[in-house]
């Protein structure tokens, strides 16, 4: 298998170890964390304007969370042994610990919060449906049909605590992914204390953009009007998060250029050649600067509704592409240069293979299908009525 190599690479380095699937994985978990943070905006910080997207954000988070382990399983040399990570986790390994962080987040945060928020509908549905559906909803009720005002108030309070715990948990979820890369001292493109922080903020950006797009798409599909106050507020939070995210990335860049350590020449060369399109054009210009300037413009000047919706759609899409490019630049970019800093290799992305392009695309689309199913099973609309004192 001849892969074009420029300069010198250690013989075992020529073939990339982590493929596009390991780009998909942090991208997907990032969407999860970001969508959840958006949901928590309403629940914890009482940003009432984004309430129409609360349940949608939770379901989006769940859909992507369910898909997250798939790229990993497809990548492993022995996926049938993956249970070992839970049986004999190595406590010094960020990857092993992440298995538990993921499980915690799935079960104790996302599923629990969805269950608590939807319990009222679940009980009603378990009573109104028939056949298999009835069985399904009845199972979800765990045998309890108490939806009195008191019970719902308990749900509300516990749900609030879960959301509160969920915020640091979301940071932990994606911060850990950042740490998996950031703690590798062998790789100067990855090794940085900034890595978990950059990952968290770029996750929030991508998650918020995803929920924004899903919401706008859903309203279009249901032929309902988009709540402009809602999307305007979401776009604002997108802007704030973006500014922090961009600030962090610029800081990293300036620090590298200024210190210019032994890895700098290699990385600089990469940025000007192999990573120019994905990093400079896609990630920075189209994926960050354009959305920031556009949404920033909307904050200052009066832009008509229709144009704003168009802007949000375009910016949201550019953001998601930009954050995917960011993951690509970190994962693939970090493997394109030699640890001898004397050479570069090429990433051969196959179309049809276990870790190829088609599989990556399928994994990115799959959560949307799961979300569609979840929207059917647990419709986010109409919103649950807050119980009046009984």
């Amino acid at each position, binding site marked *: 298998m001849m892969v074009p190599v420029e300069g010198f690479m250690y013989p075992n380095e020529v073939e990339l170890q982590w493929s596009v699937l390991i780009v998909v994985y942090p991208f997907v978990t990032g969407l999860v964390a970001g969508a959840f943070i958006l949901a928590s905006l309403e629940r914890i910080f009482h940003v009432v304007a984004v309430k129409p997207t609360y349940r949608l954000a939770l379901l989006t988070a769940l859909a992507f969370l369910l898909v997250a382990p798939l790229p990993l399983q497809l990548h492993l040399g022995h996926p049938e042994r993956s249970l070992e990570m839970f049986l004999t986790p190595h406590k010094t390994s960020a990857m092993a610990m992440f298995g538990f962080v993921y499980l915690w987040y799935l079960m104790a945060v996302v599923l629990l919060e969805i269950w608590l928020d939807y319990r009222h509908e679940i009980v009603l549905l378990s009573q109104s449906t028939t056949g298999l559906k009835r069985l399904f909803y009845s199972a979800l009720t765990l045998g*309890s049909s108490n939806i009195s005002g008191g019970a719902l108030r308990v749900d509300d309070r516990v749900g609030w605590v879960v959301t509160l715990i969920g915020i640091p948990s979301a940071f932990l979820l994606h911060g850990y992914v950042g740490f998996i890369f950031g703690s590798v001292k062998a790789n100067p493109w990855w090794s940085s204390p900034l890595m978990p922080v950059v990952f968290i903020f770029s996750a929030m950006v991508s998650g918020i953009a995803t929920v924004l797009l899903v919401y706008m798409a859903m309203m279009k599909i249901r032929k309902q009007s988009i709540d402009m106050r809602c999307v305007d507020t979401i776009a604002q939070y997108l802007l704030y998060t973006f500014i922090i995210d961009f600030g962090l990335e610029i800081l990293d860049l300036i620090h590298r250029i200024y210190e210019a350590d032994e890895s700098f020449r290699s990385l600089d060369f990469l940025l000007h050649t192999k990573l120019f399109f994905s990093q400079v054009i896609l990630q920075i210009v189209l994926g960050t600067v354009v959305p920031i300037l556009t949404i920033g413009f909307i904050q200052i000047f009066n832009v008509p509704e229709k144009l704003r919706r168009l802007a949000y759609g375009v910016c949201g899409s550019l953001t998601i592409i930009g954050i995917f490019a960011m993951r690509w630049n970190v994962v693939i970019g970090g493997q394109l240069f030699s640890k001898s800093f004397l050479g570069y290799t090429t990433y051969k992305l196959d179309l049809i293979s276990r870790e190829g392009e088609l599989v990556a695309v399928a994994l990115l689309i799959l959560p949307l299908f799961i979300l569609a199913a979840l929207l059917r099973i647990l419709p986010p609309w109409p919103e649950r009525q807050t119980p009046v004192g009984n």
Partner: protein
Amino acid sequence: MSKFKDAEHLVRLAGACAVVLVLFLLVRAHFIPKSFGQYGHFRGDALAEQSSKTISYAGHKVCEDCHADVLEVKKAGKHAGVNCEACHGPLAKHAEDPGSVVPQLPDTAVLCVRCHEENIAKPKTFPQVVSKEHSGGTVCKTCHVPHSPLLQPGDKKS
């Protein structure tokens, strides 16, 4: 009382979680290899498994047990530090069953230049030649005795 009734579903949930936890612990007890953790965070049996792999190179001491005559010649010459299998290849099978596993003699036409062909990166003190100029195609064994290769005065064959 009604307070408990309103939280009853949470108790059911806690119960379900406890069941899952117990199941997990049972799975764990069953699937973790018995020798895991004996000497550290790894499967203890792996040590013995690794050390019982098959050996391909017997090691020069084994050769010298039988081929003492060659050793006599070699240890007085320039190749004293070159172990037998460095030129003769892996011979553990031959050492185990000398009668039936008979090794092939290496071809000096290709063997010697591997080390002695001139290369700018080789240490200057290491004997190296440009083989084309040095022997012009003649096989090395024609003049040099591999086990004691340095030519003595009056040694050279034409």
